[in-house]
Each structure stands twice: as structure tokens, then as C-alpha cells.
């Protein structure tokens, strides 16, 4: 199992070649590359950032889960951070297995799940502006939960504090700058 977050170019062809062993009947590859547009808006480059330590742990967890869930022999997941230009690989997933069915399924599950749960973000720089790409939204399992009440600001005691303009009254945090990035 190889799981990495890197700031360097991902050597996709070499990684795929290294994954193959005699027991494998199939190697499925998802090579995610930077597209030259989003809905017709011309892309100059993408800037990827991550909650790096957590993202790596999440990716390791997904790789192990894929092996257990689909019974594939081995998995590689590599994600690149920093500035990427059109055509460059941002994420590479390689699944080696005895049979193609499990390989396809594991590969698809890995990229789909990674995109929903691994804390990595990208900012798209267009010719005419920049925007943080919207994600698909967190699955219920990793969200704050229905009981959060975050969508129901009308319910006390929050509404009271908000209306009074005195958030300190309800024990809300006071921020103090310690370090910037």
C-alpha cells in the first residue's frame, strides 16, 4: 500500500509499472488531471491545499478500507498539492487485483470517497478571476450531524445573543491572533 501527499510532479507511468506483480490480472488506474476549463471558463491553473496530516491519514484509511472491502491485492493513492497547470496529474489511484471487476469497483469507490471526505481543497484561477471549487458536500457520517442546530438560528439561546448583538453573553469564543499563515 502506497499513500502519499506530494508537492512534486506525480510520476504516474512509473508508479503504475511498479504496481504490477505476477498474481495480478488487472491494474485499474484513475489519473485525475487538470482540465483547461470549468463550464467553459478558461482555467489558468489550480492551487491545491490540504489539512495535510489529516488528509494523509484519511487517504491511508481509504486505501486499507478498499483492500478489505473489495478484496483487491494492493492500492496506491497519491495526491499532489500546490500549483498545477492544465494536463498535470493532481491525483493518481492505482488498484492491482486478480480480477478486473474488483479493480474497477475499488478504483471508482476510492476516487468518489476521496473527493467527499479527504480534506483537500482547490482554488481555480481563471483568466478573469479565482474561486474555491465547491465540493460535493460532506456525507452524513462526517458532517456535524442533524442535531447541530446550525441551520436553526431562530432557536434560543442563539437568537437572543444574535439579536442583542452581544455574542459574548452566550459564552461564545473571543478570538485572539496567535499566528498567521
Amino acid at each position: 500500500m502506497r499513500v502519499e501527499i506530494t508537492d512534486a510532479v506525480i510520476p504516474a507511468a512509473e508508479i503504475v509499472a511498479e504496481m504490477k506483480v505476477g498474481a495480478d490480472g488487472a491494474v485499474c488506474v484513475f489519473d485525475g488531471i487538470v482540465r483547461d476549463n470549468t463550464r467553459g471558463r478558461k482555467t489558468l491553473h489550480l492551487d491545491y491545499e490540504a489539512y495535510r496530516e489529516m488528509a494523509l491519514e484519511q487517504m491511508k484509511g481509504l486505501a486499507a478500507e478498499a483492500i478489505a472491502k473489495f478484496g483487491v491485492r494492493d492500492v496506491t493513492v497519491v495526491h499532489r498539492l500546490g500549483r498545477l497547470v492544465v494536463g498535470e496529474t493532481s491525483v493518481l489511484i492505482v488498484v492491482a487485483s486478480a480480477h478486473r471487476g474488483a479493480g474497477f469497483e475499488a478504483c471508482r469507490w476510492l476516487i468518489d470517497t476521496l473527493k467527499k471526505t479527504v480534506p483537500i481543497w482547490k482554488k481555480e484561477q481563471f483568466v478573469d478571476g479565482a474561486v474555491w471549487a465547491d465540493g460535493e458536500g460532506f456525507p452524513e457520517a462526517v458532517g456535524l450531524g442533524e442535531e447541530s442546530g446550525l441551520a436553526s438560528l431562530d432557536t434560543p439561546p442563539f437568537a437572543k445573543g444574535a439579536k442583542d448583538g452581544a455574542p459574548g453573553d452566550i459564552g461564545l469564543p473571543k478570538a485572539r491572533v496567535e499566528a498567521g499563515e
Partner: protein
Amino acid sequence: MRVRVLYFGVLKDAVGRGQEEMELADGASVGDLVRGCRARGLLAAGLWDSIAVAVNQEYAKDGDVLKDGDEVALLPPVSGGNEGLGTV
């Protein structure tokens, strides 16, 4: 108690920094912290409804109680990989 709060993506841009220390009342929960940040009005309300929170690098729930020294990350919807599905 004091916790370290980390911001990422659109949140980091809105706050203007990647992290800060916060003083919280003892017994404060993840939800208390998020509601406090939300009350600062840094982002459209809709975005707050879609964030997740990690405490010490594990996804947390609204009711989880924080303790001194925790690292609390506020995470906008993730967008790794390559295909952007969002609106631009």
C-alpha cells in the same frame, strides 16, 4: 480553556489567516465554537451549514465536548481530485 482553530480554503481567505487561538468556556462543544465563529459574520450563512469539523484530526460531531489544547479544524466542503462539479 484554550484551543487552536485552523481554517482552510474559502474560510482561510475569509478569516485572513490559517489559524488562531481561542479562549472558550470550559465544557464548550464543537457546536458552540462553530456558532461563535458564525456569529462573527465572516461567511454567508449557507456555507456554515455545509462545513465539517475535525478535532485533533478526526471528524467530530456538534455535541462533542472540547478540551484544553485541542486542535479544531473548520473544513469547508472538500474539493480534491480533479473534476469540479460546483457552480462557478
